[in-house]
């Protein structure tokens, strides 16, 4: 077993490991030759002007319905995609896509993909996939976390060394998720992007994976960008939560405050959709309508066609971020919202708390 060694790591610093500054990403959807000739390009806006920071040893939860741009945002962080506008910064340095990043910069971000089973080569024993990840992460230097060999890597995610000889198809959902985590740990990252790491697992396995994630964070001081559509899971693990809708962050703040007292109607709708385990509670009322088509976004607030509190103002003007009781919300009708734009756009790290703020 590897002994926990928390002293070896610096306490969370004020410089975020990952910082997104007003990033936007759109994908062009040109359907026909005619459209291509006429030059009309209806691009699908997957991510619109999102700013987000992730500090070491912090879990940032990213929630929203499918299609709201969560995974695109994750790919912008990992460098699989480059933003059309805005900046992705690692330790304060602006970086481009994966190919433009130095080995050291690539190392800093680990990824666990949504379908962990499909992200392994089916013809390789998982041990080989793990050692490949180790090789890529600079063989020369001693791994400071003592995760030098495969056995230790597997041990750190509570798996036995015999797993290394197994093929991905021979592993259960929970096991393959652990191996995927081990692979992300192999190159000693500072932040791991977890794209729906526990969706599709049953409650018992989900619980063990979440416990493991919490342990690893304690032990190695890793920051997580935790993407999920299950609010209960995010609520359990995250320190801060960003709620995304139609490519925009609509509310962001500390987990307790945001879930205890949601300010944005969309956050409230998401919370209401969680089925309660108590049979005495009335079933949740689903949100009417579908998320907007990314090629044809509504004017003003993107949520207004489905919003119970929408007024004409919502359809005309796009709300800016306002701070309400520690959370930042983009809605005209949030409690105590003044309807005035927040002008403060500078980044001021808050030394007193571990959670940090997000700016737009």
């Amino acid at each position, binding site marked *: 077993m590897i002994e926990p060694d928390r002293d070896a790591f610096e306490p969370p610093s004020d410089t975020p490991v990952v910082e997104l500054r007003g990033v936007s990403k759109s994908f062009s959807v040109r359907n026909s030759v005619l459209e291509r000739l006429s030059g009309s390009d209806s691009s699908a806006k997957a991510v619109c002007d999102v700013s987000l920071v992730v500090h070491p040893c912090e879990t940032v939860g990213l929630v929203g319905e*499918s299609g709201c741009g969560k995974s695109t945002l994750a790919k912008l962080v990992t460098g699989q995609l480059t933003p059309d506008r805005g900046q992705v910064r690692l330790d304060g340095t602006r970086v481009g896509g994966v190919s433009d990043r130095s080995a050291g910069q690539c190392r800093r971000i680990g990824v666990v993909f949504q379908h962990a089973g499909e992200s392994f080569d089916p013809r390789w024993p998982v041990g080989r996939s793990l050692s490949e990840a180790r090789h890529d992460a600079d063989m020369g230097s001693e791994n400071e976390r003592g995760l030098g060999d495969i056995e230790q890597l597997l041990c750190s995610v509570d798996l036995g060394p015999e797993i290394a000889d197994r093929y991905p198809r021979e592993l259960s959902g929970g096991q393959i998720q652990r191996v995927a985590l081990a692979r992300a740990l192999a190159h000693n990252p500072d932040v791991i992007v977890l794209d729906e790491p526990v969706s599709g697992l049953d409650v018992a*396995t989900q619980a063990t994976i*979440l*416990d493991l994630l919490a342990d690893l964070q304690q032990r190695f001081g890793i920051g997580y960008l935790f993407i999920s559509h299950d609010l209960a899971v995010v609520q359990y693990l995250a320190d801060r939560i960003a709620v995304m809708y139609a490519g925009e962050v609509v509310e962001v703040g500390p987990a307790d405050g945001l879930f205890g007292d949601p300010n944005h109607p969309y956050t409230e709708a998401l919370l209401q*959709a*969680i*089925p309660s385990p*108590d049979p005495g509670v009335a079933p949740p009322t*689903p949100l009417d309508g579908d998320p907007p088509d990314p090629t044809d976004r509504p004017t003003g607030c993107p949520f207004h066609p489905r919003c119970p509190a929408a007024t004409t103002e919502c359809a005309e003007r796009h709300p800016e971020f306002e701070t309400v009781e520690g959370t930042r919300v983009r809605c005209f009708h949030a409690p105590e919202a003044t309807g005035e734009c927040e002008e403060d756009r500078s980044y001021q790290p808050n030394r007193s708390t571990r959670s940090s703020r997000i700016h737009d």
Partner: protein
Amino acid sequence: MSKPLLRVEDLHTRFDTDRGTVHAVDGTSFTVDRGEIVGVLGESGSGKSVTARSICRLEDPGRIAGGTIEFEGIELTTAEESTLRRLRGNEISMVFQDPTETLNPVFPVGEQIAEAVRIHETNDRQRLLDFLGVPPFRDRSAWADARERAVELLGQMDIPSPKSRSTAFPHEFSGGLRQRAVLAVALASEPSLLIADEPTTALDTTTQADILRRLRSLRDERDVGILLITHDIGVIAQTCDRVIVLYGGQVMEAGPVERVLTDPAHPYTRSLLACSVRNTDSGERIHSAQGRPADPVDGHEGCPFADRCRHATAACREGPIPTTERSSEHRLSCLEAPLPATRESSPQRVSPTPDGGTTE
């Protein structure tokens, strides 16, 4: 007492593998009535899906080694293939977990629903040339009627602009729309029993709430009996009338939802409730059950949960566990019951807030 719609009695489904015989379903008994939703709760590998498949007699490559499945007085385990063909889809419909894999990607959605309608109209014989769409042999008017019915079914599922959507392909639908289209296919023949195998696991919470509302309205309006398989306790609590807790292919506990979820009597049910993130506070460790699910190869001596159960005694590992009635309708297979009340196993800890969220 009228006869139940479906009665499964001491069902055994086995798979012969190289490692030995896997006892996937090991003596399961339950009933489903018209106009009720029966939930099947359990971890992966507990035999939920195999039970569902056995009812449709789609257990291949497994085999039913014993027991009876009685549907509207027809014994399905010994029924002829032609009888089964008539029942499947017509009287018993199934909805699977992933709507993307259920729909054919190369046919428009409306066409696939129309096909289901046509198949159920022409019960006895389906003419190959009609199905292949060979022009002179194709019954055009019947197909036109079936298409109209498909549009009607899509409309009933609240799919916006059903006429134009019926010509769309599955990839043009969102996850929730797809699952609604799959439900439309399943309901094309107005079945009396619907088996839904994890119908909302791949969906967002908001979409899930919509699909669950639809299932409830099916029960109330069309008097359909529904067997809902899931590992989500919240889904069971908000949708089902009765619940069956499966483990190792055996029924651990069965009874009305209010009874089983608020006052669980079986240690396995308690551990399932305890490991739900929805019953756990942020920062607190989830009480996951220790150990792995028992190996189903060669069956179980005694209680399958004995190895993970902290109340287990030597007697639990030996003979068969008798089923006791705790109260009417509330059945239990445990030697150690009644167990002392534990605080963490009760979902009452979670009290709903007025906005539908849950707080401590």
